[in-house]
């Protein structure tokens, strides 16, 4: 009698993904599906797919999905969540989608404290379009639009979304995790579970950033890509929780008291 202790979660369809071999998108998908199963949220979950490598994510999840215009997934999620507050809404966005064209949407969704979850996959490059420079590309990293490496004089330094959004006063849950290191995957799942739990309790906006790999466009094999993510990306993108809703509000706020 063999007892299965690890198999495909119910929220993930039995289809093969279109992702390249070794791409950590697959791990991220599986973690989300496992968390939805564990918390029992699948029946009332709506995902919002981005434009990017994960544009076909609606084929892989066994829950309702909507497809947003490029970068506008937080705006669409805001609409869904405000119309149907009992639904669990999450967006799944890459760095070209969230950190570049969708900066205004994500910033103001976080500032308004919209109660949905954002999964942000940061692989330091535009994957689907063929490896162009993204706002999160590392200095001196080669891409098709910066063949000599990213020049910080003309392109600036990489955007650190978690650090930027954690400076907003509105309470939220902001964490950065990775799926490129096997031992970090349970921690990544913990962060995702917290993010969805805060949403289920209707407490705050939550964002989980995944430091991911892109073996194809980085021009490495999957293992080398994971090692590069650890050696070159993680010093600049440190892992951890940046903000929780239990953090005290900054001093100096003139809040009106006794109105409850």
């Amino acid at each position: 009698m063999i007892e299965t202790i690890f198999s495909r979660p119910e929220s993930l369809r039995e289809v093969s993904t279109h992702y390249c071999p070794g791409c950590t998108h697959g791990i991220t998908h599986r973690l989300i599906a496992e968390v939805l199963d564990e918390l029992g949220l699948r029946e009332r979950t709506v995902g919002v797919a981005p434009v990017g490598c994960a544009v076909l994510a609606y084929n892989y999840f066994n829950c309702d999905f909507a497809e947003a215009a490029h970068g506008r997934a937080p705006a669409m999620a805001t609409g869904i969540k405000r119309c149907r507050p009992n639904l669990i809404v999450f967006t799944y966005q890459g760095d070209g989608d969230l950190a570049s064209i969708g900066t205004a949407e994500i910033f103001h969704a976080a500032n308004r404290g919209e109660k949905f979850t954002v999964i942000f996959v940061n692989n330091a490059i535009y994957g689907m379009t063929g490896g162009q420079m993204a706002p999160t590309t590392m200095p001196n990293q080669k891409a098709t639009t910066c063949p000599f490496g990213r020049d910080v004089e003309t392109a600036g330094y990489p955007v650190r979304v978690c650090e930027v959004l954690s400076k907003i006063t509105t309470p939220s849950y902001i964490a950065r995790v990775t799926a490129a290191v096997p031992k970090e995957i349970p921690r990544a799942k913990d962060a995702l579970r917290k993010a969805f739990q805060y949403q289920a309790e209707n407490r705050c906006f939550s964002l989980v950033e995944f430091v991911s790999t892109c073996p194809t466009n980085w021009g490495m094999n999957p293992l080398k890509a994971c090692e590069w993510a650890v050696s070159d990306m993680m010093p600049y993108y440190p892992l951890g929780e940046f903000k929780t809703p239990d953090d005290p509000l900054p001093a100096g706020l003139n809040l009106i008291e006794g109105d409850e």
Partner: protein
Amino acid sequence: MPMIKVHKETCKGCELCIHACPQEILVMSKVLNKKGYFYAMVEDPGRCIGCAMCALTCPDVAIEVGVQGTRYVLYEY
């Protein structure tokens, strides 16, 4: 006794599980699957400790972990 099963048609041959396995019991096959990839396979099933690290790192959920008898929980997941 723990055991793992690799679905050879789902595997894309990225080799991440081979480097994640602390017992080093996974190897790449010498033949191709239907997609045209060399797939991962278990070389020495008797040494599997059921840590599920291979299944955790598999981006295509090609690995199933089963256990017969006593199950050791090595970490919280």
